[in-house]
């Protein structure tokens, strides 16, 4: 590389980075494919619900109408769009009157759920404000589109077993652990096969740099694995919250209660979701998974910074670690100066007292 021309240097380095990222992306795609094609990975958490919904749904829902409706009411909103994409397979299934669980695989698509959950829990406030506006606009077409959905909920609730009515999905065929176990198994397989490449000692020139890149790649894959586990936990909890909303609705039906305004339903939705997630947040499992995810992220960031530093070493610019040394020096000097100032003042005070 020509270090005398920073622009060429950086361009060349960026190309290398791009290649590395592409390689990682390919690998991630393969892993994704592995997850989704492994037996049991398509265990659909919504199977119970969708079956009953399908059975209870007396009429087909036109997918175009559904899409148009969503796009009219939720236009421009990424979070809602992602929510729609997540549910699209089920809409298709309802329209086609098919109950093939494979059609619902997308519902368990970690990437899609991750994107949705990220919108909710990474606190993109801009998106959130949009979300609220558009959620409110949902009322605009509720009369037109909402009723069949509501009817489906009610019919489903009625036609389901007592377990369903009590919200005990987990006791039926929904096993949230399945997905995560497979992810762990996949990661273990990766570690014992391709992953070994990342652990192998580098040889030749630039050995240390190569090792650092390997470490960073490993840290990033560790972050990805932890992040998937974390997102999966949030996803499962989101499903629980949805079930809890349905259960509460069913109870309202049984009690003969009705909503007077959309606000009442919204308040219920917020309340149930908040309580369900709060229950999760109280658990040690959540703390453990969230901390594991963030810790892995911080570690990856630290290593990435080191790589950047290595790459910039030949350029005439101050690097982070060098600035840290300066900060430390300034900090120590400040303390010394303050201490000396204090001593001088004390001496002056005592001298003036002695004069008096």
């Amino acid at each position: 590389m020509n270090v005398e021309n920073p622009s060429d240097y950086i361009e060349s380095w960026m190309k290398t980075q791009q290649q590395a990222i592409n390689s990682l992306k390919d690998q991630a795609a393969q892993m994704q494919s592995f997850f989704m094609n492994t037996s049991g990975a398509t265990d659909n958490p919504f199977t119970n619900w969708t079956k009953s919904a399908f059975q209870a749904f007396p009429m087909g829902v036109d997918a175009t109408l559904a899409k148009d409706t969503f796009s009219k009411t939720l236009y421009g909103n990424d979070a809602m769009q992602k929510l729609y994409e997540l549910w699209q397979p089920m809409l298709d299934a309802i329209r086609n009157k098919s109950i093939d669980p494979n059609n619902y695989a997308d519902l368990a698509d970690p990437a899609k759920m991750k994107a949705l959950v990220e919108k909710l829990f990474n606190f993109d406030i801009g998106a959130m404000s949009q979300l609220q506006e558009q959620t409110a606009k949902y009322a605009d077409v509720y009369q037109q589109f909402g009723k069949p959905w509501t009817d489906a909920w009610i019919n489903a609730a009625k036609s389901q077993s007592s377990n369903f009515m009590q919200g005990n999905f987990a006791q039926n065929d929904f096993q949230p652990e399945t997905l995560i176990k497979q992810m762990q198994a996949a990661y273990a397989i990766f570690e014992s096969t391709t992953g070994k490449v990342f652990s192998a000692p580098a040889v030749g020139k630039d050995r240390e740099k190569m090792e650092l890149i390997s470490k960073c790649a490993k840290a990033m894959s560790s972050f990805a694995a932890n992040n998937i586990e974390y997102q999966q936990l949030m996803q499962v909890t989101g499903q629980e919250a949805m079930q809890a909303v349905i259960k509460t609705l069913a109870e309202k039906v049984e009690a003969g209660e009705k909503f007077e305004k959309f606000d009442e339903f919204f308040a219920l939705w917020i309340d149930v979701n908040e309580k369900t997630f709060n229950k999760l947040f109280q658990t040690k499992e959540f703390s453990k998974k969230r901390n594991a995810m963030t810790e892995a992220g911080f570690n990856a960031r630290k290593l990435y910074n080191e790589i950047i530093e290595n790459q910039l070493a030949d350029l005439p610019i101050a690097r982070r670690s060098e600035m840290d040394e300066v900060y430390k020096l300034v900090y120590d000097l400040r303390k010394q100066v303050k201490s000396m100032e204090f001593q001088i003042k004390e001496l002056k005070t005592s001298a003036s007292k002695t004069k008096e």
Partner: protein
Amino acid sequence: MNNPFSNIDAKLTMKYLGDFNSKLIKGAELLTDIEEIDVGTAPRQLIYEEDKLKLYRYKAEADKSCGVPVLVVYALVNRPYMLDIQPDRSFIRNLLKLGLDVYIIDWGYPTPSDRYLSMDDYINGYIDNCVEAVRKSAKSEKVSLMGVCQGGTFSAIYSALHPEKIQNLITLVAPFDFSTNDGLLFNWSKTMDVDALVDAYGVVPGNILNDGFLMLMPFNLNIKKYIDMLDVMEDKEKLLNFLRMEKWIFDSPGQAGECLRQFVKDCYQGNKLVKGKLKLGAKTVDLGKITMPILTIYASADHLVPPAATKPFNDLVGSEDKTLYEFQGGHIGVFVGSRSQKELAPAISKWLIQRDVPAPVKVAAAKVAPKADEPEVVKATLMPKVAAKPSSPKKPKVTNTPKS
């Protein structure tokens, strides 16, 4: 069909949507009209500054009711103008109207060069220098410390290490006993790898901590709050109040890494303050050395600092005169809630006046205090340390007297 939604009337919904649209349009107009979201408007003057820190003295709004000045120590997280968020909801103005002489520390916004600041620097350095500056400015031998949240923890630590300078200690919604798991923050922090966080960032960005706060109630704080905002959008004053709070919430300074590291490790994870094992520099903090009168205020519905983290404090101090005060509300409601405006400042003021010294005591080395309109700013220098008499409680023992 037995449908819970069948009662939603189409005409009513249309009317609702019509009203909603009107609100949106009017709200949008109002939003474009609002140029500045003013906060922290109570008049004040800068009397001391050091590094990023600034110490202000508020302009008196009534005849002095208390000889001893009050120094407010706010948390490092978020900005202290929460205490003066808007003119009609200002904890500070309420104190001023009751004749208190109020000073406040503004920690500023740490930059990467502040990453090595430790708890020792904040407490034995900055707070001590501010106490000295207040003593000099107010010509008072002692100071009443009023610590808010983390600032309350710091104030208690300071009072234990320098009891001779503190007349009274008031803490508001401050954590002391970190062994509790009542609050999510306490729960999460126990297993948090703060080393990884600090090593990755140096000065930890405020938005990382803010994300954690918002996650305590994600649906209410990220969704419902903004839906509710629509109800006040057409009222300029209400909208401004909402925006002031929003500004405060997202105005989160970064955290000096070393200080945060020690606070999480020693307090949240080690609970060393309660155990008497917390060390600052060469000194060990012994809460038993707090002998001045103390007023411990906690909020019954505090989701950030649960009562269980605050209440044990009174049993750990050496003071004979100690009061535990329960405020019916949440962590922020203590300062901005409508009940707080009527209740809290008068209670604190009354408590302080009851324990006030008869007249201000002259400090030997102090200069004449600056007049209200002639601020004398002391910059980046230490105040001369003035010997102070040890604290002697003036009132009989009062314990567990909520809602005075």
